[in-house]
């Protein structure tokens, strides 16, 4: 296992270059602020150097594969696993191992899928894995915040005890601020986006055991 996960080149400047194994990071911000792109890029950053990608999506696996392919040369079935909770039948041919779950509310199914795919990675000798969950906001549409909170706590603990890197997205304008704050408390660090008065997007980085960065333009 490597000592750190490379996360450089993600944001302007060098506010975030690498993260230790077992880190959980949430990308949060309003709708259409580019969180999803940043999360996908973060998932894909170590891929060319042999890391694996295991992503839970509330969209179809095909959509995530297409999006990931914008960030990597080509996807290799041995190193990409997708847990598709959209209820699609999984009949399409994709360059990824897939587990199809009937609904985002089937948390047991998601956890079994996660365990299965991580075993596949182990069997293939892939030790450094970036786990994605896109998105927490969709889970919150299907379940109480209490249930989602518990799931995320257990999930982040799984990431930290296996030395993986966990990457999550959360819409800040779809939920009560109180719920957003509560969820944020589960992660080691946050990359936060907002739109300023001029209609431009800015970001800051909070957590990771250091002082928050000031808001900076993208």
């Amino acid at each position, binding site marked *: 296992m490597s000592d750190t996960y490379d996360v450089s080149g993600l944001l302007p400047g060098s506010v975030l270059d690498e993260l230790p194994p077992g880190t959980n990071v949430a990308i949060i911000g309003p709708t259409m602020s580019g969180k999803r792109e940043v999360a996908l890029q973060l998932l894909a950053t170590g891929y060319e150097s042999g890391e694996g990608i295991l992503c839970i999506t509330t969209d179809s696996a095909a959509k995530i594969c297409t999006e990931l392919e914008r960030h990597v040369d080509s996807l290799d079935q041995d190193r990409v696993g997708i847990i598709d909770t959209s209820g699609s039948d999984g009949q399409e041919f994709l360059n990824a191992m897939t587990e199809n779950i009937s609904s985002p509310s089937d948390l*047991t199914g998601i*956890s*079994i899928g996660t*365990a299965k795919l991580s*075993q596949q990675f182990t069997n293939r000798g892939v030790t450094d894995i970036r786990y994605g969950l896109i998105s927490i906001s969709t889970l919150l549409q299907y379940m109480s915040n*209490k*249930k989602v909170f*518990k799931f995320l706590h257990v999930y982040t603990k*799984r990431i930290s*005890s296996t030395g993986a890197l966990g990457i999550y997205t959360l819409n800040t304008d779809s939920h009560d601020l109180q719920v957003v704050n509560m969820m944020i408390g589960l992660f080691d660090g946050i990359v936060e986006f907002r739109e300023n008065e001029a209609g431009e997007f800015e970001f800051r980085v909070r957590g990771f055991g250091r002082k928050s960065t000031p808001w900076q333009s993208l």
Partner: protein
Amino acid sequence: MTDHGTPVILVVEDEPSVAEGYELWLADQYEIRLAYDGQEALETIDDSVDVVLLDRMMPKLSGKQVLREIRNRGIDCRVAMVTAVEPDFEVIEMGFDAYITKPPERQELLDTIEQLLDRSTVSDTFQEYHSLMARKGALQTQKTETELAGNEAYQDLLEQIETKRAAVDDDLGDMGSDIGFVSAVRDFADDDGDFEDSELDDELAFNETEEDE
């Protein structure tokens, strides 16, 4: 499940000498009940049982069938499969909470039982942890970071959160284990929906009352 007192372990094993061997190891710390086949296990089991050690291969009813019936009846206990063959993924999918390979070491058996007993308290600890975190989330919406930094009650809350988080993690055990992870999620995944707008307010009200005591 018992709330207090000596935990009750049900050993289901068709080989009497093996069953009695487990009893010898465990009787100091737990109340042991023995069943020599699946049918007897289902006649014996009730809500007072905390942990079931279930042999995989038995005549008549298999361990898998017994597990299914235990879950169907909604009995709140943890079930460990005891198996001579290295289990495949099916064991996780079937809903076992742990597995023990035969023949087990005494310490391994004791450790597994302790972990499963811890797990049976996680539901309450989790509830309290969620309440505290909801409260923190609410305070963050009401006050600025500077105000919170100087607020003693908020600093107390942060300490309580750290203590509770450690308790939850201790109860959960090793989440790097596939079966432990799936079993931990399954514990709350099937809870009935508590999807109400007021749920956070309820949590807060609950906390206020608690503090008055």
